């Protein structure tokens, strides 16, 4: 449990079930609340577009079975929801439009996730 991250409501977009479950577990361990896991762009967009779901942040896999996650990123931007990327392509694989977005290179451990979440998503009030 990390106080700064406690209760953060996060969306996970990851197309590999096994990896998604690990991220879910890591976030559980950090005290975050996973409000949704999406394996496809359409599912992700549906979740982001659902106003009934409170979102503090998101962790986005860049490549979803051949589809790019950017439409979800744009939707998050318009909702002013901070997010980070989680990618197996390396930092270079990210579109220049989102070059400023922090990114985690797979595979990563809980510490790396925690550090990035604190710097990128955690609410200043909570820290």
């Amino acid at each position, binding site marked *: 449990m990390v106080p700064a991250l406690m209760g953060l409501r996060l969306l996970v977009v990851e*197309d*590999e*079930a*096994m*990896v*998604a*479950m*690990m991220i879910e*577990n*890591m976030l559980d361990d950090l005290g975050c609340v996973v409000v949704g*896991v*999406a*394996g*496809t762009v*359409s*599912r992700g967009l549906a979740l982001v577009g659902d106003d009934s779901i409170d979102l503090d942040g998101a962790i986005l896999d860049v*490549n979803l*079975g*051949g*589809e790019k996650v950017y439409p979800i990123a744009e939707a998050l931007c318009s909702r002013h929801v901070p997010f980070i990327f989680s990618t*197996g*392509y*390396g930092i270079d*694989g990210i579109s220049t439009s989102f070059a400023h977005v922090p990114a985690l*290179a*797979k*595979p*990563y*451990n809980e510490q790396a996730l925690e550090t990035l979440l604190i710097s990128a998503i955690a609410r200043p009030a909570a820290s």
Partner: protein
Amino acid sequence: MKVGSLKPSLISRQWKAGPGIVVLIAVGLLLAGLSMALYNEHLASGQKLRAVTVQAEILSGSVAAALAFDDRETAQEYVAALSANRDVEAVGVYDTQGSLVAGYSRPGSRLPATNRVHAPNWVGDRLVVTAPVAQRNAQLGSVYLRTIQDPFIRRAARYGGIALLILMASLVVVVLGVSNGSLAKAHRALQAEMEERSKTEEALRLSREMEAAAQLTLATERGRAALRQSEQQLEFALQAGRLGSWELDLETRRLTASEFFRANFGLGPNDNLTRYEELFARVHADDRDDQLQAVDRAIADKTDLETEYRTLSPEGEIRWILVRGRAVYDEHGSPVRMAGVSLDITARKLAEERQRALLDELNHRVKNTLATVQSIAMQTSRTAKTLVSFKSAFLARIGALARAHDLLTEVAWEGASLTRVIGRTIEPYFADGQVDRISLSGPDIRLGPNAAVTLTMAFHELATNAGKYGSFSTLSGRVNVKWRIDDTNGPAAVEIDWQEAGGPKVAPPSRRGFGSSFIERGVAREFDGQVQLIFGPDGVCCRMRLPISTKLKLAA
């Protein structure tokens, strides 16, 4: 060679008539000697005549008184005085009757008995002179004087000396002439030899010149032939290598382009490509700056130009070309022209792009696989009660992951077969003779890499559970997996039905483990579908409804 050729010819002309002149001079000398001898003889006889006449007149004067007085003794004294002269052979004094008054004659010769005055005359080599003796117009008598001409021997000796001198002179002339002749001959021979040599040398020089010219011609011909050959080889090499060639006049910007070079720009033989501007217009707009910089740099640094850029054909077709070139500079170091080759490297560029994409993809997959392994390790460790159970479960799951990769590798990571994914997962649980306990049926569904890994892991969890607690744990248990495409209820989806039978009675687990949650939640979320896991009394039943997508679709 030429320097000496003038002098000998002059000399030769001087000496050419030598022998003739020598003979002529010799003959002339002989004739002159002869005429001199004759003239001398003539002079000598004249002189003799005058001398004897004077003697005769002196005698005549001397003996006049003696005759007048008939003084024979006095006359005899005058006569005797003359006998001292050795030339005088006979001398006589005669009276008016012609009778001898006084006389003398050398032994062996005689005086004529009478004398009569007459003109001097020669009798053989003896001169006879008579003269009258008179006093005051009175004839007193006459005198007779006979003298001997110079003896032949003396004259011969005198003339012989002259003749010898002439002969010697002639000999000298002849010898000189002969030696001159031989000299002239030698000279002529030398002259001829020199002329011959000069001719030979001239011929040699000419032949050398001709040989040199021939050599030059041959060399030029060989050079031309070599040039032609190398040009042909170059042409062949250019064609074989599909290389374009070009040359640019840096001053006039005029461009000479080969057929292949034009083709590199998507231009035919009739399209205009004679100006650098026309080439530049065909360079892809994004690559123009780089191209210009590369050319300028190569010229400035005097290095080889090597640049790659895209060209745009009139039809809008993009080609990648490689251009190599080198500038040529004049003696002041100013660049005058640039020439080089070009090569269409579109295929290479595509291959490079493909390779780069493949490498990126490989990197991505390795990273994802590592993340998957990491997840498996974490999930397994969360549920394993002991290290031993962790180890066996972890290794089994890694094995399943490896099988998924094997299947994907078989199809080059493009669409693993659902049948194979399920079959490979459950076959290890059944011996060879028990394949009838397995029933797999459904259309040929193709799975993308992630889908193949996820479904392999899902069926691995189902099979593991069946092996531990379900139908795989008994000898009579069976499994029946059926799948079909369903498009009656919303978007098309694959419905997979896993049904175990003949195993021990199944009870729902008190706590959902990793396997259950992975199948129910993980798979459902990944495919954005629904998954039901039912622990029915007849055996475990798993129903999946997975929408058709790029990662899960019917085989083409």
